[in-house]
């Protein structure tokens, strides 16, 4: 399963949207209900899924799926 698909599963659960289709271009501006509270849930679920821990600075800049993918890459998740 690709990283994007694993993130999609997380987003669907957090946002309670089973039909949500995630792309690298998905962001807080085009994904319904992706607000600051959802970001907390997404970050914690992503950490759990990939067995990593983001720094406070890394978390502060997350506004898109691309941001998450970049940070995962910096933690060695390709």
């Amino acid at each position: 399963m690709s990283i994007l698909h694993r993130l999609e599963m997380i987003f669907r659960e957090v946002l309670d949207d089973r039909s949500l289709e995630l792309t690298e271009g998905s962001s807080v501006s085009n994904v319904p209900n992706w607000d600051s509270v959802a970001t907390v849930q997404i970050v914690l679920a992503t950490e759990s899924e990939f067995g990593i821990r983001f720094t406070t600075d890394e978390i502060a800049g997350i506004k898109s799926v691309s941001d998450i993918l970049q940070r995962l890459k910096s933690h060695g998740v390709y």
Partner: protein
Amino acid sequence: MLALHHVGYLVDNIPLTARSFEARFGYVAESLIITDPVQTAHVQFLRQPEGGNWIELISPIGNESKLSSSLRKGGGLHHLCYEVTDLPTACEKLRDEQMLMICSPVPAAAFPGRNIAWFMGRDRLLVELLESGPGPLSLINMSKKRS
């Protein structure tokens, strides 16, 4: 030490709600209404005379407050605040326990000389950590008065 300091309760009208808590449950106001520009809120602390912690009534400052959307969804029970002797260690512990720091330690208007930090978990529980210290709204002071 990590002890419950107060329960935050989000309301539209602090004086009206304070009167209700006084009449229903015997709470007494233990602070004036304090304006906290960092938290974009007005707050007031109430306590039952023999109670061991406080209720914090919280009201957003205007419609632009970060609390306004929560109030529009109904308000009510908002957060738990724990007083801690070692704030950095308590922050690390909550991070280890799958909670995310959503606001780094900052001075608190309601507690002069003391810092607060905010956390949220996957269960959406909102937690405030308050550095222990002197002042009227202090668990340590309350404990000293009783002993």
